[in-house]
């Protein structure tokens, strides 16, 4: 199939940036979206042009490194799918596809489609863990955990930290990301001792990192490649209120 992509090109953080159109010919419908960009980049290099910079690594939808706005939607048109797992069979011959980086105040553009998501790590540093230094652990079976709780914690823990939720949010909020970690750890007995300080510290770090506030727009969960549900934000708010009360 033949398509045209219009890609955001930005030399560096201080460059203004602009959309540039490229024709991509003879792409297999079985190619992934990133493989389509690979093919385009090979051509750009040989033509003496600057290839398009984009983040990617595992290309199997789990590392969270890739991500771009495709026709204005984070990770593109397929639900529950990262950009690397999006295949060209979901587009049509002759399509014109717009490709842009994540747009969020807390994720400054480095080059082209590459952004800095270091602010996510800062949120985790603030409290997204259970304090359990190596060697201090009790026998694994000493605390049984009901299967339903373990399963729910797992679902929340599947977040890959890609940042699509932030990019899709009209406020540039990281609430779904933070809520997923608060739920994962808060649903397990091991996570109880730090439950209240965790939520307060993570929210504070999130605000300081320049993310916007949550207004329950729900765009985040719509684009989340792992389907992290919006109800976790409600859960975080409940935890937060309780924690404030105990402060």
């Amino acid at each position: 199939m033949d398509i045209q992509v219009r890609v955001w090109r930005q030399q560096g953080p201080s460059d203004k940036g602009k959309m540039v159109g490229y024709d991509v010919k003879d792409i297999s419908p079985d190619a992934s979206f990133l493989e389509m960009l690979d093919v385009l980049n090979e051509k750009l290099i040989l033509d003496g042009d600057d290839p398009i910079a984009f983040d990617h690594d595992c290309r199997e939808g789990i590392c969270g490194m890739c991500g771009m706005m495709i026709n204005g939607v984070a990770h593109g048109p397929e639900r529950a799918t990262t950009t690397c797992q999006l295949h060209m069979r979901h587009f049509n011959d002759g399509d014109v596809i717009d490709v842009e980086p994540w747009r969020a105040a807390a994720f400054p553009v480095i080059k082209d489609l590459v952004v800095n998501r270091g602010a996510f790590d800062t949120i985790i540093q603030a409290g997204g863990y259970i304090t359990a230094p190596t060697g201090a652990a009790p026998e694994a079976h000493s605390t049984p955990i009901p299967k339903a709780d373990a399963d729910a914690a797992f679902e929340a823990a599947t977040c890959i930290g890609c940042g699509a939720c932030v990019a899709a949010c009209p406020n540039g909020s990281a609430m779904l990301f933070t809520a997923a970690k608060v739920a994962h750890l808060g649903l397990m007995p091991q996570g109880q001792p730090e439950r209240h300080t965790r939520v307060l510290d993570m929210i504070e770090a999130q605000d300081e990192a320049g993310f916007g506030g949550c207004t329950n727009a729900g765009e985040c969960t719509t684009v989340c490649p792992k389907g992290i549900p919006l109800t976790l934000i409600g859960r975080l708010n409940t935890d937060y209120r309780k924690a404030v009360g105990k402060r």
Partner: protein
Amino acid sequence: MNLWNEGDPIADAAAPDGPIETRWERRKFAAKLVNPANRRKLTVIVIGTGLAGGSAAATLAEAGYRVRSYCYQDSPRRAHSIAAQGGINAAKNYRNDGDSIHRLFYDTVKGGDFRARESNVYRLAQVSVNIIDQCVAQGVPFAREYGGLLDNRSFGGTQVSRTFYARGQTGQQLLLGAYQAMERQIGLGNIEMFARHEMLELIIVDGRARGVVVRDLVTGEISTDFADAVVLASGGYGNVFFLSTNAKGCNVTASWRAHRKGALFANPCYTQIHPTCIPESGTHQSKLTLMSESLRNDGRVWVPLARGDSRKPGDIPEAERDYYLERIYPSFGNLVPRDIASRAAKNVCDEGRGVGPGGLGVYLDFADAIARLGRHAVEEKYGNLFEMYQRITGEDPYRVPMRIYPAVHYTMGGLWVDYDLQSTIPGLFVVGEANFSDHGANRLGASALMQGLADGYFVLPNTISNYLASGPFEKLSPDHADVVAARAGVEDRLAKLLAVDGDRTVDSFHRELGHIMWEYCGMERTEEGLTKAVGLIRGLRDEFWARVKVPGTGEQLNQNLEKAGRVADFFELAELMCIDALHRAESAGGHFRAESQTPDGEALRHDDEFSYVAAWSYGDVPTLHKEQLDFEYVHPSTRSYK
């Protein structure tokens, strides 16, 4: 000219002898300690943030050392351990099915085709039980039974259920546990983290590993960093094949730079080709995707009995199907180890019975499991894997059998280390897939996660103190002659790559190198093919340095410059892999030499000649140093899964 020379043998001087059950206890007791107040005066650099590097960095920082951690990704949470699907082994014997530390030890030595060190493997099995405790304490949401206790499943090469898992995302959950422990230490100021940085050289001063030269991948700035010890946790080298299940960025550069500086490289030819991957779909293919081995618990592998049978799988009656693993290996069936399953798939495809485009595929069929357990139970166990398969291929595996084919997945070889995980360069430690130590010639499923975390949480933190107790070492300045030289070497090489300005892309060279390796150093190797491959690799390497085109400059984010440096190192490694495969004129585990097979086509070892670790030193002509392997507890036998 000889392709290699033979040098002096080497030995592992760090391993205690005596009863194997108490070796690790005795080694820990004999190791020198550093008192807590002195630990903060000692700095350790850790390269890589996967399971081994992440767990090592967190644990060393918890102990009080100052840690400086580097990764090429934008966050330490993204290292490729995250993609491990199936599970992690531990000898907990929660199933009361006869498992024990000794059995895990035995299975691993046997699974590795008797080419691993007994001492190391025994320790791995001992430590395995602590890993599960540690991960549970961190909040890793392992799968559980309705009673609230941990669930297990079985994996290839074993007859017990000892694999702990978190759906098909075990690596992700374990890595996030290590990452969160690391982030806690970063927040406390005990780890300084450098994401989007790549190590391009090792700095050695007075014979000790003392630092690294790194490139900031965003600004292109080259800088030097110093420490009292350096830990490489930079993963395996499967991407030498271009197409593999590794992440696109996985590379051998950190290990290879250390090798060039004097660290021996052991068993480079031991490559694991994983039997269950999604087949290639075209020339645009940039990587291959694994389908977890756990699928073989319930999926049945088959091909049509007749050659060239082009009917749809559903139209082929039972009697005309060949469930070849169950037929050839009745006692292990679909759960034979990876090397055996991969070669069996290759054999049926070579016979013309493969399915799908180009006949390069076999079926992995869940129809029986769905009929027996119900769709819901299958979904519960493998849901995310089925979704991934459907997303990539556009086919629904609940209705149509999956098509799978072997792909490069893991490398058992790596930098040579002693029992303390120290390389032949004092102060350079190597953990996880980057070292060679525990899997012999073939790794069992769910053992990579076990080894990575064993090394990082429990082994290295105990052994590195024995080295650090002699520190802190002399403070280094960037003006030190050895530092200046290391840095200049890096700058020259980058300038050289940019200066070629030829007419072929980096990827085109990498792809061609991968074809050579897959053809001649893949699932089946011959003397003739390997000799030919060495010539082809050298020719292509010369062409690379004459014709490669790297756009842009070194003073910016330049992903092609990063790739070019990695591919340049892959060329050198590829040659050594072929030489290692050529010299090992036996079949063992993942290394199958066509000249060395039994009458029924199984791998034939030659213990009298090859019961050693092949550790290579760098040179225009590499030199082989043999470490003899002694088996006191597991007697080498013909590995049979029939």
